[in-house]
């Protein structure tokens, strides 16, 4: 069905009793041209781009739980394209441009809100690094503004500017950055893909790969039977190593837990998405009023989707250092998601060393903002068997050749670098 002001009015006048399901819950067929493992944002976006941009409509998305039940439903909903390294800059801007037209493309309200993302700096050296990153962005046609102290004070007068150790000196602002409603992104892609004939199959766990005599992947074994496939794409961040192991692969990835937090609802306070440059703390405010914030990964391998107290304490200390007045706001909820931590902190979108299998993995804790871009370039790779030019550096073999993309200078563990 098509959503519009008229469909809303019709549904309202009939007491909201006649809404149709927004997407079709399919049962598996025997064979598809492309099978995507993983019904999160990336998997569903890939399926939609395959159907809408590349004309491949005989596609299935297999999800072991329900769609959006993994990291797509566990993130802090930030979108931005403020990256400085070749490989990242162009890719994340491609993704940002797709965010800007997503709601029209999908006919679905994803509450994309370009409220701005500001990274605060606290020293001369950090200012210089941010200036350089901002300049890189602007040379590449991306908006960036380096704000001085007066401009930041005007925008956010409530910060602790005179922190003895880490005084705020200014910030790098990307006004086009912001947030989006994460669940609506999943449902929107499911809605639009389903309209084009993509089968979304839930409660369907992949338990193995079907290989022919040459070792080529020709399908998957699942908890709902064998499904044949021309090509199989993996978009299962958090579980990439486990799924790849079924094809005999070892990946340069560790699974770690990242926690996120929401406070009780308060009146509008945080006007944008802001990050504390002297620790790891980032915060925005949801439309319901809760402060949504997070920080570092816990730092040990985990598949448990829950974290521990030391990082909660650390994140809250970062928040208190930056915004002392939130000290009396109570924490409402806290949860953890499993991050595919690659060894250089950047993703992998590439053909697997096994024929017929394609990887979309290693998103670390930055996968949400990449959702549309990842879907587009992964669909490009699956459809044409060659990397999109903006994803050409996200190769699996870069760890062997040394062409790493170490934007943050760290991968799974800071002590590795």
């Amino acid at each position, binding site marked *: 069905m098509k959503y519009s002001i008229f469909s809303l009015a019709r549904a309202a006048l009939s007491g909201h009793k006649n809404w149709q399901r927004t997407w079709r819950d399919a049962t598996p067929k025997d064979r598809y041209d492309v099978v995507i493992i993983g019904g999160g944002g990336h998997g569903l976006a890939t399926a939609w781009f395959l159907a809408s941009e590349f004309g491949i409509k005989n596609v299935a998305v297999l999800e072991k739980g329900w769609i959006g039940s993994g990291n797509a439903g566990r993130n802090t909903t930030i979108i931005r394209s403020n990256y400085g390294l070749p490989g990242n800059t162009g890719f994340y801007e491609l993704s940002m441009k797709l965010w800007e037209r997503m709601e029209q493309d999908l006919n679905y309200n994803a509450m994309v809100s370009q409220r701005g993302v500001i990274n605060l700096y606290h020293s001369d050296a950090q200012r210089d690094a941010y200036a350089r990153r901002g300049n890189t962005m602007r040379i590449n046609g991306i908006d960036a503004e380096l704000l001085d102290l007066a401009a930041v004070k005007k925008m956010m007068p409530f910060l602790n500017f005179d922190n003895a150790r880490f005084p705020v000196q200014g910030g790098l602002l990307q006004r086009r950055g912001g947030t989006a409603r994460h669940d609506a992104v999943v449902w929107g892609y499911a809605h639009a893909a389903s309209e084009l004939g993509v089968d979304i199959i839930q409660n369907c766990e992949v338990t193995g790969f079907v290989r022919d005599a040459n070792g080529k992947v020709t399908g998957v074994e699942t908890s709902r039977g064998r499904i044949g496939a021309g090509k199989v794409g993996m978009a299962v961040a958090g*579980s990439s190593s486990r799924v790849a192991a079924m094809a005999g692969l070892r990946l340069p990835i*560790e699974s770690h837990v990242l926690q996120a937090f929401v406070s009780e609802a308060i009146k509008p306070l945080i006007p944008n998405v802001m990050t504390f440059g002297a620790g790891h703390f980032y915060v925005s405010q949801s439309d319901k009023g809760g402060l949504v914030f997070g920080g570092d990964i816990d730092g040990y*391998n985990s*598949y448990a989707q829950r974290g521990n107290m030391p990082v909660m304490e650390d994140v809250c200390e970062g928040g208190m250092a930056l915004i002392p007045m939130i000290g009396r706001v109570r924490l409402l909820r806290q949860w953890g998601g499993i991050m595919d931590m690659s060894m250089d902190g950047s993703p992998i979108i590439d053909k697997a060393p096994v024929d017929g299998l394609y990887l979309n993995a290693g998103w670390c804790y930055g996968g949400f903002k990449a959702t549309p871009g990842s879907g587009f370039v992964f669909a490009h790779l699956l459809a044409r068997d060659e990397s999109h030019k903006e994803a050409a550096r996200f190769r699996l073999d870069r760890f062997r050749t040394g062409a790493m993309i170490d934007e943050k200078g760290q991968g799974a*563990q800071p*002590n590795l670098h």
Partner: protein
Amino acid sequence: MRIVCPFCGERELGEFTYLGDAKPVRPVAGAPEDEVFDYVYLRDNIAGVMEENWYHGGGCRAWLKVTRNTLTHEISLVEPAAGAGARHVVK
């Protein structure tokens, strides 16, 4: 998660630092490139019981070998790592 250090007793997680899987062994000098690549970059990334190296920086500063389930965070065994004063532990 709390870790029972064989030297200090039960302590909270914040006192410890994680190194990772205890299984990989550093290749000898002059080892083939493939071995070094494998050691530095590739991971088993076990979902289940894993032996890991932890450092008790907030306590005795000894390296420990911790057997832990990555699916549940349950710790079943904590031993001093090889060479980390294992002989001082009374069994």
